[in-house]
Every structure is written in C-alpha cells, then in structure tokens.
C-alpha cells in the first residue's frame, strides 16, 4: 500500500532550480558524503537568561529515523526552531550535510535546501482547499514571477492526486482545509511535507489527536520513508516511538541526557529520574 518512496523520488537533476533571483537562495548543495545529514554542535539558546538549549550536540545520519523524547521544557521545539532558522542560536554550529551552515540561512532558504517541518499544532492554510494546500507546498520554483505565471501541468496534477490518495483525503480535495477534523489536518500536513520532497523531515508530535488506526498508518508511512529521507520525530507516545524503532534521544534541560534504542533508554536510571521526578 505504501509505495511512497518511488512516488517522491526526486528525478530532476539536483540544483537545476536553485538559480537566484534578487539574491535569494544562494545556498550550497547538499553533501551527504560522510553519511551525516544533520549535525548540531554545542548549540546554546537562551531567553532572558533561561537556557532553552544548553550545549546541545546531535548528529542525524542520512536515511536515519530518530525519535526525540523528553519532558516538557526540555528544548525539543526550540531545537526544531534552530534547525529551521526560526531561532538563531547564541552559540554553536548547525550543519545540514557537510557544507550547508543552517545558522546563516533564512527560513525559506532552509526549506529550499530540503528541510521540511511539521508543527506541533497542525498549521495548514485553513482558507484554502485541501488541493490548494498541496499545490502551494509542492516542490517547484517558488519565486514571485514563476508563481504569477504558474499553471498546473498534467504531471503536477497527478502528483497531487496521488498524494491525496496516500493521505486518504482524495474525497475532500475541494473542501476548505479549515473544516477538516483534527486527525485529517494532521494527515494533510504530513501530505504537504511529503509533496515538498525534503531530504530531512522534522515532525513535532505527528500523531497527537489521531485515532489508533491512523497512528498505525502514520508509523508505517514513516518507516517506509526512512532510508531515502532522514526523519526526526518528536513524540510523547511511547507506543508509537516503539513502533518506529530506531534510535531514541532523550533531551533534558536543553541538552542530551541519553541516547540509544528505546529499551536501553527506558532502563537508564537518569531518564527514569527525570520522568518520575526526584
């Protein structure tokens, strides 16, 4: 059922769409030669003296599916903000592949080099239809002039239709996205993320508000995406984390507390302390 990997394979030559207009998108090529997709070193972010991130170190391999867990206020969302350029770190390095320095790029540029993000609260374009939501996010030239002249080509329509089927919203294509149920909105946002064809997917609590069945399918989808894409999933639902497999990183007070597979992490004394309180 999940043939997503072929569907979203990027068949266009890399970099053909990166020409710059008025100085935007002068970014490097994604270089995964050393097998590391995302590399954070000594990242510190503080708000009014409160350290949201404290010397955070994290490396995500190409094709890896990584789960991040941690109590409230551990810095999970701030970490995503740093990676996507929303928050600038006070110090530290953030690299995408070998050569792209994320701390120097703006949000659209980061999206352009291939990092997609799903927010904790589903953020879709509520006034647009489901179809338009996908049309807007689809990987394409996103500069002003091209958008003015854009006219959907047949293969683009097919791609949207396929994504709609995948996220099971093909019957809702012309509905206003704001009218969808919470679970459907989550799916739509996942669909938007897929059609954007990122190399690295950041997913903040992707299954919150989903039924068990939907959660299951989401899990299958993520597992099938790993390998071709790198995924970072922030989640509280341990059953879901277990289903995804892969390495688990525990954040606490802005830095990494433990790392390993779920069983190891769950038996780690410090992790138990953090979760249960001292």
């Amino acid at each position, binding site marked *: 059922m999940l043939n997503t990997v072929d569907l979203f394979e990027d068949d266009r030559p890399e970099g053909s769409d990166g020409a710059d207009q008025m100085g935007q998108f002068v970014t490097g090529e994604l270089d995964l030669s050393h097998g590391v997709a995302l590399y954070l070193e000594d990242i510190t972010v503080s708000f009014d003296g409160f350290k949201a991130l404290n010397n955070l170190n994290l490396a995500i391999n190409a094709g890896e599916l990584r789960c991040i867990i941690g109590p409230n206020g551990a810095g999970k969302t701030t970490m995503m903000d740093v990676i996507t350029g929303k928050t600038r770190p006070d110090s530290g390095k953030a690299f995408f592949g070998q050569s792209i320095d994320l701390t120097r790029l*703006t949000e659209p540029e980061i*999206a352009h080099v291939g990092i997609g993000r799903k927010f904790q609260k589903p953020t*879709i*374009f509520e006034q*647009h239809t489901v179809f338009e939501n996908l049309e*807007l996010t689809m990987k394409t030239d996103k500069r*002003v002039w091209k*958008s003015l002249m*854009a*006219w959907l080509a047949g293969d683009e329509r097919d791609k949207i239709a396929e994504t709609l089927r995948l996220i099971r919203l093909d019957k809702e294509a012309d509905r206003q996205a704001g009218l969808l149920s919470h679970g459907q909105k989550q799916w739509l946002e996942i669909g938007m993320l897929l059609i954007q064809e990122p190399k690295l997917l950041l997913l903040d609590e992707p299954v919150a508000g989903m039924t068990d069945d939907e959660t299951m399918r989401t899990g299958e989808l993520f597992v099938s995406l790993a390998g071709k894409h790198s995924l970072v999933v922030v989640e509280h639902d341990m059953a879901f984390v277990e289903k995804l497999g892969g390495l688990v990183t525990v954040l606490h007070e802005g830095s990494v507390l433990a790392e390993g597979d779920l069983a190891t992490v769950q038996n780690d004394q410090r992790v138990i302390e953090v979760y249960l309180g001292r």
Partner: protein
Amino acid sequence: MRKPLTIRILSALDKKSWLALGVFLALALVVAPVLHLNFPEDSALHVSTYAITLIGKIMCYALVAVAMDLIWGCGGILSLGHGLFFALGCYAFGMYLMRQIGRDGSYGADLPDFMVFLDWKELPWFWVGSDSFGWVAFLVMAVPAVVAFVFGYFAFRSRIKGVYFSIITLALTYAAMLLFFRNETGFGGNNGFTDFKRVLGYTITSSETRLVLFGLTAVMLAVTLVFAAWLVKSKFGRVLTAIRDAESRVMFIGYNPLWYKLTIWVISAVLCGIAGALYVPQVGIINPSEMSPGNSIEIAIWVAVGGRGTLIGPIIGAFVVNLAKSWFTVSFPEYWLFFLSLLFIVVTLMLPQGLVGLWKKLMDKKGAAAC
C-alpha cells in the same frame, strides 16, 4: 505545459462578470457621453457635467479601493498610507498640468505661478522634463513604485506586521504631508496645484475633454479589475492569502514572503498613482491635505464597507460612501462626519464582510470570496 495568455486572462472572471463588465463599459463609453452631449440641460435624460465629474472622481476612488483591497483583503496588510501614493500620482501629473498652463497664469510667466510668487528664477531639478507627457506618465507610476519599494523592502524585511505596519504607513503619509506643506519643497505648499488650463493641448474644462477623461477612467477601472481578478486567481494570489493566514508556515515551505508582499505592495501603489493621475485633471486641484492620515483611513473604510477580499466590494464601497458624502455635504454638512464615523463603527462591529458579505448572507450564497 504553458497556457496562452488570452486563455489565462479570460479565465480570470466568469461569464456573468464579463457580461457585467461589458455593460459597465457600454454605459460609461457610449450611454453617458450620448446623454451628456445630445440632450438639452432641462431634459430628464440629460447627464449633467456635475454628475460626470462626480462619477469620474468616484471611479478614481474605486480604483484606489481595489488597490487597497489587493494589499489588505488579499494580503492581510492594512496600509494607512495609500493616500500618499494616490497623492504622489496626483502631484506627478499635476506638474505636467502646471506646465501646460504656459504663460496663461496670472503672472504670465514661463514658470508656474507659485514659483514666481516665491521669486524662483528657474525650475527645480525634479521639474525637469515635466512638460513632456510621456515622462510624466512614467513618473506617475515610477514615483509611487520607488517610494513603495524602498519603504516596503525595509518594513517587510524587518517583518513588521499588523498594527505596527499600519501605524508606520500612517507616519509615512503624515511626514510626507508636512513636507509638501512647505513652500520650499517645490510643490506649491499649502495651495498645491490648481487653475489648470489644458491637457495635451485640449481645454481641460470642455465637455469633450471631460468625457474622454471619464471614459479613460472607466477603462482603467475595468482593466484593473480584470488584472486584479487574474492576480488573485493565480498561484501568486494563493500564496499571498497563505501568507496572510499563516506567514511562518509559508516560510517553512520555502516561499520568501518578503518578495511576495513587496510585489503586491508595489503593484497596489502604482495603481494608486495611476488613479491619482486620472483624478487631478477631473477635479482640478491637488494640495497636501490629500495626504492627511484621515484620507488614507477613509480608503480603508471604503474597502471595509464594500467587503474586503471581494474585489467588487471595494468598488461598491467607494461608490456608496462617496455618493453619501456628496449628498450629505450638500444637505447636512454638520452631520457628514457623524455619518462617516458611524459607518466606521458599524462596519467594523457588525459587518466584517461588508455589503457584499451581507448580500451573500441574505441570498444565502456560500462564500465565493475572491481571495
């Protein structure tokens, strides 16, 4: 696969709207002139000069309202400085009209009267070329565009949003007003420009000239409407509404909101400039009070009254408010401000979708909003 431009333009409006547009143009270009010229003044069918000027003026306002709607209704950016762009268009074209007066001014000099009065010996540098219609037509669009681009670039780059943006646009037009009030600025100070005689060599007050200006304004309004509808329907329009509803999300998908906002902002300013250029010869005067903050806020009210985000709404709004204004100022001058402020309050409180929204509600039509 690329569609030819004609098909794209045709698909901007539906059949009914094209028909309505055709009727409007026929009225403005054929019926009104015929009624104005061919019937004597006491005939019931006669359209008076007053009516022609008034409607022509309001059509200019409607043009501004559509421009405002593009930026506010579709882009979610409330500008309280659109009066400035309008006035810049007025002044740019006004320079040409001043030069057309030639030696017929009260001092009979080559220079415009106010310069003679200030004892200036030659034209300031920014008046150079103002006797050429082509150059001035370029200025009418270029000056608002440049001002809007520079201001917008810095404002949008620093991500100034919502009410902050509204207030600094208000500050901008206020500052410009103070600047233009000064005699030294070279635009006639308090009195601005007036007493125009000719445009392109034709007498400005003749019926024929008036009708040509009237027709031009109607055509410009129709073209703008089609252009705006096309803009809103394009992917560009959808990105713009997406920015309005969830700007940060748009950034994380890879669009840079700066250029999108800037594009629509400059387009809107240029449309205002053109409206201004059409307005000046019909009204015959331009002074700095056009830039007063109140005027710019009034533009927002036209749009709000008609219904923002609907394109046709702002036109209706501009007509309703301004017809009411001309009626009130003649019949009950003291009460016009009361009525206007009541309109401000009632519309913001009770009719967030404006008259078009109200009509839709009454007709129980599902939201076919343009953007």
